[in-house]
């Protein structure tokens, strides 16, 4: 047990204690100077009357949902492909990996520069992009955020699916082929069901990741236009570190954790993932 102690103490101090503190701080008023003052449910009642807060939660859920819808089919397709035995596959897989290595800051700055309203690609292709200012209205700004998140994170999910696809027993495909199933039917009746656990894992990662997206919003849109891309994580930062209202910031943070946990639990429960039903049943 002594072997596990240093890491456990360290982790408790710098991850779990702050997590408990965030709950405590959400019932206080603190401006960053002096000590936090207990103020009961003040932050919480204010929050639930705050239209921007409600909107930010909705935007977080919307962005996360769009992320799942865009990234899941794409990464399954790419992952299944990468699990095959094509020539050049290794090289291409290595290139896929590049966005994962870059910081969210680097990724956001790259795309911000590329999509800049004044000198970026859209300003030169107005026939496609209208006035060229993708950051000027809500729907295109959200589109950019979804696109950049997909650019950055699809490789990670592709890796998950690639590994899961490799683990599918070849005998299932042979059996399906004997039954006369074509490539498409094999995909829907063998590959997809076998990937169930991978899909759940990857979706939970997408949900937690999506709800806590922050750097990308800060650099790409600053929550704008107006508050049209002010998702909860950004709103928390804005409240606490720009508005010096740390108590409310803590409340938003706690709310975010609760929402992320609840959604993940629902996904796990609905999918039957918690019963740890093997995908291999009936194989042997």
């Amino acid at each position: 047990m002594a072997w596990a102690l240093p890491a456990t103490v360290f982790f408790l101090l710098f991850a779990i204690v702050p997590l408990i503190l965030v709950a405590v701080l959400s019932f206080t008023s603190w401006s960053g100077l002096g000590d936090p003052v207990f103020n009961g449910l003040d932050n919480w009642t204010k929050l639930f009357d705050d239209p921007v807060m409600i909107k930010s939660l909705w935007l977080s859920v919307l962005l996360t949902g769009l992320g799942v819808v865009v990234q899941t089919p794409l990464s399954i397709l790419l992952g299944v492909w990468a699990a095959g035995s094509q020539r050049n596959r290794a090289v291409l897989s290595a290139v896929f990996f590049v966005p994962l290595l870059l910081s969210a800051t680097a990724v956001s700055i790259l795309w911000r520069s590329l999509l800049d309203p004044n000198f970026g690609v859209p300003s030169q292709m107005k026939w496609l992009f209208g006035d060229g200012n993708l950051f000027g209205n809500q729907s295109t700004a959200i589109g950019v955020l979804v696109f950049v998140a997909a650019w950055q994170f699809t490789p990670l999910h592709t890796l998950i699916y690639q590994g899961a696809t490799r683990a599918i027993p070849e005998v299932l495909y042979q059996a399906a082929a004997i039954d006369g199933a074509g490539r498409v039917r094999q995909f829907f009746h063998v590959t997809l069901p076998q990937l169930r656990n991978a899909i759940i894992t990857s979706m939970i990662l997408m949900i937690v990741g999506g709800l806590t997206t922050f750097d990308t919003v800060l650099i790409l849109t600053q929550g704008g236009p107006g508050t049209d891309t002010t998702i909860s994580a950004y709103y928390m930062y804005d409240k606490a570190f720009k508005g010096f209202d740390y108590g409310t910031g803590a409340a938003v943070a706690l709310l975010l954790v609760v929402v992320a946990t609840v959604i993940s639990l629902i996904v796990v429960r609905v999918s039957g993932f918690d019963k740890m039903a093997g995908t291999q049943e009936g194989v042997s």
Partner: protein
Amino acid sequence: MRQRPNYLAGIATLCWLVLVGLPVYVMLGASFQSQSDFSAAGPLSWPAHFTFDNFVSDFQNGFGQYFLNTVIVTVCVVAIVALLVPPLAFAIVRNIGRRSTRSVFRLFLLGLAVPAQAVIVPMFYVMSQLGLYDNLIGVILPTAAFCLPVCALILTGTMREIAPELFEAMTVDGASTHRVFFQLVVPLSRGGLSTIVVFSALQAWNGFLFPLVLTQSESSKVITLGLYNFRTQYGTNVPGLLAAVLMSTVPILLVYLFARRALIQGLMGVGGK
């Protein structure tokens, strides 16, 4: 049956390659162009006259300091992770039957789901109280703590693969737990060790939120914050900005190229014995 080329996925892959390649191409193209050439020729241009001026001006604007700070943070985070995680994983793998060990393991699994945003306000409070605000140590500690869950998971996975007979053989020979750890477990876990080193190095190098909230002065800024600063400072100097982005990613790509080999060697070491 599966050997036939899958055209649909193949086409999707090619599209994806273009999408991944495009920003990288623009970054390289812009970094070596003067600002006036870039504005005249547009974002998709390739430099007609190569220049290193952008890199020089980045260093004049403090890139060197940012770089040094990031190196310090990364080295310290990797050191903490490499010191703490192997004994932890060893304890978990060898004593998973015990209730206390299982609770520890569950704690770290729970930690997997905690996003950094959740603790950023209390972290700011704690670091202010400890007098570590605007100090690189204040960035290093939480960054390392948030690497622990994933690294513990990876390394326990690797250590589980070590055959129980090897432990028995060493114990029969009268080896102490320390000897088992240093002479059996550590050498046989090299693959997993390289993975957690690479993972924590990436996290530390790319970290943004902790430095953003826990540091303030120029002298304690890391690269990601420096880039964020440059973005507001530089205005239309996209080449200067992208040159800085390029410099921030080169070390990562080098580590990745090097670590791929180390990873494979580590895995071969396990398989060969």
